[in-house]
């Protein structure tokens, strides 16, 4: 208990302390915001650190492949890079990439449109919300590739089947994330929106969408990754579509020809594309929006 302390016995706790008032706080601290050194600034940049990381990984790859010394199982980084450049020059890899990316974008955009419609329905009505919950619970765990046989029966051997599979890969995660984002928009923001008499449409575009943007971006990122996987897997199984083979087909064909460095070059292309989209598109989007607004640290 506090009462046990000898409250009056000042000498037991040291001599008496006089009041102290500083009328002239020191001013010689120079600038408050001191610029960082050059090296600090260089290493502060994510791109620099990540590039160094990539170089280190390439070195590890090269070292391991040389130690293994079995080009059929694991070609060196230099061989892969050579095959990569060769593939670009002969336009084989390049056209495969163009085919894949075109299909991917078609499927992705269509998936987003479907997700937007479903989310709009779910946001506007309770039946819609129940429908979205049930459908995502049913279909989200279903691997896209499992739908490919069915898609081939429905849409034939054309691009249609692959796009159907891509839409499936994209729409559920995007719709689910967007809807969850809408639902978790702060009650205060909603009341602010209503207070200033926003119309229904303005309420969605000026309160709900920016308020849910962190979730929406997450959904877009997940959807993109799912779409890539589904596409490569579908092309591996499916082979040539009407407009020529994509990256999956390129990988599959070169495996059959035992052109292992080219197989790796195809995989490298998938990885490079993934990294580029993640770092250039999504990161820029995040930096311009939710980071700038302090909604993500």
């Amino acid at each position, binding site marked *: 208990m506090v009462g046990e302390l000898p409250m009056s016995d000042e000498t037991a706790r040291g001599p008496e302390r006089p009041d102290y008032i500083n009328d002239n706080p020191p001013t010689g601290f120079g600038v408050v915001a001191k610029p960082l050194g050059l090296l600090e600034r260089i290493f502060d940049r994510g791109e620099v650190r990540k590039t160094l990381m990539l170089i280190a990984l390439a070195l590890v790859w090269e070292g391991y492949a040389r130690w293994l010394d079995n080009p059929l199982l694991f070609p060196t980084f230099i061989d892969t890079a050579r095959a990569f450049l060769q593939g670009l020059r002969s336009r084989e890899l390049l056209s495969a990439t163009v085919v894949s990316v075109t299909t991917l974008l078609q499927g992705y955009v269509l998936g987003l449109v479907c997700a937007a419609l479903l989310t709009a329905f779910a946001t506007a009505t309770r039946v819609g919300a129940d429908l979205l919950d049930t459908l995502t619970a049913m279909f989200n765990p279903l691997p896209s590739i499992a739908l490919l046989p069915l898609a081939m029966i429905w849409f034939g051997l054309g691009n249609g089947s692959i796009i159907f599979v891509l839409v499936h890969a994209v729409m559920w995660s995007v719709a689910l994330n967007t809807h969850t984002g809408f639902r978790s928009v702060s009650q*205060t*923001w909603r009341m*602010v929106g209503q*207070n*200033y*008499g926003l119309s229904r449409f303005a309420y969605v575009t000026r309160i709900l969408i920016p*308020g849910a943007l962190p979730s929406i971006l997450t959904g877009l990122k997940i959807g993109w990754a799912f779409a890539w996987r589904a596409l490569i897997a579908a092309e591996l199984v499916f082979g040539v579509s009407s407009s020529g083979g994509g990256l999956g087909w390129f990988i599959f064909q070169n495996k059959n020809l035992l052109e292992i460095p080219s197989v790796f070059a195809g995989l490298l292309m998938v990885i490079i594309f993934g990294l580029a989209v993640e770092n250039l598109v999504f990161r820029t989007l995040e930096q311009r*929006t939710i980071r700038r607004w*302090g*909604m993500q640290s």
Partner: protein
Amino acid sequence: MATEVQKPLLDVDGVTLQYRARDHLVTATYRVSFSVRKSDRYVILGPSGCGKSTLLKAVGGFIKPVEGTITLGERQITRPGPDRVLVFQEFDQLLPWKTVEQNVLFALTSSGRLSGGEAVDRARHYIEKVKLTKFADSYPHMLSGGMKQRVAIARGMAMEPEILLMDEPFAALDALTRGQMQEELLQLWEDTRVTLLFVTHSIAEAVRIGNRILLLTPHPGRVRAELGSTGIDAIGADGRRLSARIESLLFEGEPDGRRAAHE
């Protein structure tokens, strides 16, 4: 001037407010009546949970009374509208994706009050009034709590609403900032003479801010008293300070422990 009987601006008449929970009804306020005149600084004071916020939201049009009516001017209040602007306790009432100036502008333009250059001028004028011109282009997450509340007040005042509804706007601030903000609010009121309906659970704040103080009983909130205030905690006819009178009205017949716990 004293002879002219002023018609009330806001009339709350026998209002009962309820929340429907999953398996029961919660009555927040029961048959509350009061009226606010133009340019009043009308304070609603009561312990936490007595239904002050609910009452303010009902005036804002966000909640419908189950009994009684709320009238502003000639019209009965049925839904939210820009003639009654709410300032909340929460710091997150500013939209984080808009700068300080855009937050104020957004209110003016989306309510159709003003547009274009006029709106910008009005927004800048009120931002200057709360001394935040230097921060007009900052995003809310870069501001302190007190600055955020000042922006929210500027946004509300820029609307030049019929009545400004404030729900414990300073409760989450530290004591030093709170005192300063109360002073600034009174100064702004001097300049604009806007009608304020101000909710608080602090007796000191009520006495300082209000010219009329409505006391609500603990949950469910009912009217306990309505008192006048001059802002200086004056000694009344009974020889007691206003704050002492309020305290005895709120905690009459309760053990001292409850009284101490409140402040």
